[in-house]
């Protein structure tokens, strides 16, 4: 006993895994900046409207087509609606669509990936389904889906909620495949590890095994695909809105604002600029965030 106590005590407390990840993440300057920028954008679009006196749908026809001024820093549109307020409202929709669609794709992808990797019987069937989905032409199908289901959903949930549900579902069920593939690969490798064997030998059930042992270990690829999923969903939603098949005109999103601005491109080019910049900056920051997360969560790179 005394010998043990006499041993030199480690002076620094043990470092947790998340601490290591945070340190690695911090050292990736682009990722840190990307994270901060994304956070700022999210805060700006969600908290900004509380402090901004104009409503995104308030029409002041006398003040239409104004340039930038102190009252309207980004000017007003062809109906005199304040562009800054519209940008914030559009950002709310774009960011929420991005995050919700990403969550949906992530849940679907992880579920299918874990199932395929863990249960050998399901593997073949689920992976063939994944391959099949990967062979579908996604953008045309998205367009077709939006066209087909817009009216029934509008009737059921109202125009705004209906189109939101439609677009989120459409993006979600067409973008889960990469996550499923990555998760399945990791689960297949994890299943052969000793700790899984140990857990099984003390009688862990399948459900507990997946939630307690498998899922925490595949969190890192899931988080990386989460960030990339947000970027993908925001771009897809904007593309749909830009093609005129997304949200209705009185319910702005960044893509829709860009689409509306194209008609006035010759007279007011700055109206094209702001929504485009907002989309690009958001996607860029999220992509950098994902890049940094991938480095930080990979234990082989960490500590180098």
């Amino acid at each position, binding site marked *: 006993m005394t010998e043990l106590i006499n041993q030199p005590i480690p002076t620094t407390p043990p470092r947790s895994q998340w601490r290591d990840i945070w340190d690695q993440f911090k050292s990736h300057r682009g990722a840190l900046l990307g994270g901060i920028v994304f956070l700022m954008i999210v805060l700006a679009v969600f908290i900004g409207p509380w402090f901004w006196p104009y409503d995104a749908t308030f029409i002041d026809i006398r003040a239409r087509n104004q340039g930038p001024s102190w009252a309207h820093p980004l000017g007003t549109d062809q109906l005199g609606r304040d562009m800054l307020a519209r940008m914030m409202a559009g950002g709310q929709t774009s960011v929420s669509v991005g995050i919700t669609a990403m969550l949906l794709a992530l849940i679907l992808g992880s579920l299918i990936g874990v199932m395929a990797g863990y249960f050998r019987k399901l593997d073949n069937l689920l992976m063939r389904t994944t*391959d*099949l989905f*990967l*062979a*579908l*032409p*996604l*953008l*045309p*199908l998205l*367009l*077709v*889906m939006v*066209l*087909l*289901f817009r*009216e*029934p959903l509008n009737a059921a949930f109202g125009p705004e909620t209906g189109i939101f549900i439609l677009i989120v579902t459409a993006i979600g069920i067409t973008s889960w495949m990469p996550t499923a593939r990555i998760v399945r690969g990791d689960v297949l490798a994890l299943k052969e590890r000793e700790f899984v064997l140990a857990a099984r030998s003390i009688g862990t059930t399948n459900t507990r095994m997946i939630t307690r042992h498998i899922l925490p270990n595949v969190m890192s690829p899931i988080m990386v695909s989460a960030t990339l999923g947000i*970027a993908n969903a925001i*771009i897809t939603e*904007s*593309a749909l809105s*830009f*093609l005129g*098949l997304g949200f209705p005109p009185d319910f702005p999103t960044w*893509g829709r604002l*860009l689409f509306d601005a*194209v008609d006035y*491109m*010759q007279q007011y*080019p700055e109206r*094209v*600029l702001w929504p*485009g910049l907002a*989309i*690009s900056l958001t*996607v*860029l920051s999220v*992509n*950098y965030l994902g*890049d940094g997360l991938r480095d930080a969560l990979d234990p082989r790179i960490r500590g180098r």
Partner: protein
Amino acid sequence: MLTFTIRRLVLAVPTLLFISLVIFMLLQLAPGDPMAQVPLTVPPEVKEKMREALGLGAPVHIQFFKWLVQFFWVEPQVLIDHIFGTTFSEGQLRVLSWQTRSPVMDIVVQRLPQTLWVVGMSYVLGVMIALPIGIYSAYRQYSAFDQIGTFVSMVGFSVPTFFTGVLLIVVFSVNLGWFPSIYDTTHKVTDWDSFIVQLRQMIMPVSVLALYNAAQISRFMRASMLDNLNQDYVRTARAKGLGEKTVVLVHVLRNSMIPVVTVIALGVPQVFGGAIITEQVFKVNGLGQLLITSIEANDLPMVQTLTFIFALLIVVFNLIADILYGILDPRIRYD
């Protein structure tokens, strides 16, 4: 290798059938009525006859089967007739567009050159830009060139094509007036001057798509080069006194091209899909624009055929990528 190819080809048939079924069933749910444009003065029984003339009276599985026969049996015959001047397809019903009442494939063939010119050119250009950038930025990892290259490719990858396209139009068409903002597809290249006009109208759409493609491919190229640069065989090649140029451009490059070539092959169908947006921005009346207009006009046979052509491209290029991988990399054995 041959057995693998044959097996994959056989497997592709049910995949394609299933995809066409999925698209068909999805379109069956369409709420629109092709008779909606017909004047109200037309009596209902005439409308019913018109509906049957469009093939809408038959049950769903018969409609699907008819489409399959028309697409896989009649259309190839039309192609053979067209090439050899034979008359196999005479009197057989082809896939007809509801919008124009003309065969869908004829319209597709009319639209194909525009898409191929713009999209194909931009893809080739994108690959040609991407490869040197990827190679050099991997060779000088963390140098200024690499940092800038990574940033530019990140930007090119993140900025959607509908924004870069519109931005280019604002700058170069509206403000500077250098290039036309609308792609004129009726323009014929006959002499030098008309060639210059064609070049000027192609610059913007091609560069928008090329930037986007180059960004993705250069990232792959860089990653693949980095994987190979630290391998043992590179040290061996240097140790036996080969020049730096030979080591990088022959030994490393050939090995790192294996995954990149498959990525390039896999990207081709996606480019066709992504070009839908660019075509819409620059008003190129190619396949993408055809799809959008037919979706808006509820022209189901057209949508069905076009979507299926996109799916066909994906399946075919997946197959090509797999086969290329097997040919290029002797370590891969599909047995």
